[in-house]
């Protein structure tokens, strides 16, 4: 249909005297303004504040990630453990398709084996959205900190689970006198091993209202403080 219309126009065009070509027609200008209005409207999402989400190494400056990420998805692909995933609309409109962690099956060790402790994601980011300053290492720049929710934790129901405690590669968890794990927040670097190991959502009696695992790595705010979701502050 469309092509036929175009065909007609060509025919009328060739039969009559060609019209002059301007710099910018009024119609184009108006359409352009319409497009501009949409972009400005979408830019307004910037003013809706959302909690920071957990980012791969080098992405701890939230503003920098939002400003520099072009959603090229190279970091997801390069990640040898497949734990970098796109952010979703649930995390805020601006966070859609920006890198975040999915600690469902594995955790981040800053590519210890694969690249001698230099995270591949920060190395390949073409626009420096993930950017590690010189000298930043796994222990100097925490990705986040783990928060344990005793309401959902199996150990706190005296079921003897200590998966997260055993999984922690950096000795950031301890057991109390009843064998219940808790997080040492000064030591925790937010690697996500505990979250990957947590079985609270898949085994045992699932707690009422539980929609995520009992131990979750939370992002840090700009002052480096953990953003608690459940208000439980360890021991």
């Amino acid at each position, binding site marked *: 249909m469309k092509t036929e219309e175009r065909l007609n126009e060509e025919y009328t065009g060739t039969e009559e005297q060609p019209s002059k070509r301007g710099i910018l027609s009024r119609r184009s200008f108006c359409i352009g303004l319409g497009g501009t209005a949409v972009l400005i409207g979408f830019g307004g999402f910037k003013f809706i504040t959302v909690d920071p989400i957990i980012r791969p190494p080098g992405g701890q400056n939230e503003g920098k990630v939002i400003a520099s990420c072009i959603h090229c998805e190279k970091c997801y*692909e390069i990640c040898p453990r497949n734990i970098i995933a796109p952010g979703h609309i649930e995390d805020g409109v601006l966070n859609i398709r920006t890198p975040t962690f999915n600690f469902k099956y594995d955790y981040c060790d800053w590519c210890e084996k694969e690249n001698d402790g230099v995270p591949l994601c920060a190395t390949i980011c073409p626009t420096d959205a993930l950017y590690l300053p010189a000298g930043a290492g796994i222990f100097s720049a925490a990705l986040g900190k783990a928060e344990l929710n005793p309401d959902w934790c199996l150990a706190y129901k005296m079921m003897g689970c200590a998966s997260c405690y055993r999984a922690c590669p950096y000795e950031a968890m301890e057991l109390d006198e009843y064998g219940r794990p808790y997080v040492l927040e000064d030591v925790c670097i937010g690697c996500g091993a505990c979250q990957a190991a947590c079985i609270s959502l898949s085994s045992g009696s699932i707690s009422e209202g539980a929609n995520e695992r009992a131990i979750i790595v939370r992002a840090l705010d700009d002052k480096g403080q953990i953003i608690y979701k459940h208000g439980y502050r360890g021991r």
Partner: protein
Amino acid sequence: MKVVNIRTIVVLILIAVITIGYITNYSIGTFSAVGWREFALLCPLGAFETMLASKTFVGKALVSLIATVVLFALCGRAFCSWICPIPLVSRLPDFIKKRLMANKTTTHAVVSERAALADKAGADEQVVKPKVTESIGNSLVKAKCSSGSSHCSACHEKRGHLDSRHIVLGASLLSAFVFGFPVFCAICPLGLTIASILLVVQLFAIGEVTWTLLFAPLVLVIEVIFFRKWCQVFCPLSAITSLLSKATVTMKLRIDDKKCLETSQNRKCSACASVCPERINPRHPEKSYSLMCECTKCYECVQVCPTKALKIPFLPWKTGSFARVSDKHKEKKD
């Protein structure tokens, strides 16, 4: 094989390579930054937007940015028809419609009919051909503009040297600077196409269920299928490629006056003009809707030409009797 099918296959292969790269962790990247690991051809729009948004100069982006701009400058708007999946997405409703209602006359049918008539006229050595084509043309005109063509402004208004795409391009850069994040990148249909595919992969690979799975395709559909002429009217990337191709000399459309029906046998043909998706008239560039810099090297005109009088060589020399098609219409022959 129809050139449109070849283009479709090329784009589908590219999408398949990107998807396989995503699944197998080969870090090929997507259209925003395609390449092997650290070496990536960066989307020029995205690169400028992020530099403006973060107010920092990214040194490592510069090399890939220059490489991309050089490629765009060499190949003109070939990106738009051979690599970008958006024309494919916007053809999707037509494709489905064609499958449902298979008896519609397509342009190709009209053009091939016209080419057949041209051949017949050529065989008879009579100059009856113009009459025949004109009658086809007039009947089509009547079918569309019943009020006559003189008041129909859409038929006459030409695309200017700048158009709405350039305004959107300026707005993309400005909004990135003002709001501090690449606004256009967030709704770029090119990115959303790949995102939609990869989200489906994620859904089946790790069972990730999210509202983005609906949001990304929805925005894509609104942009590309709702506004049918996204590429010609809104796309700022298309504005960049057309600006870059204004200055280039490689991959320019050339026409051989000795072969062209109009110049060699003084017959009316216009087959090339009727298939051009950018509404360029290669025979009479001064009558085109678009300037020559909008040519996307789609090869539709080269394919449809009944006497093979058109070609798009990569190098500007060694073109024989083929003269360059220019907007200024001065150089009849090089």
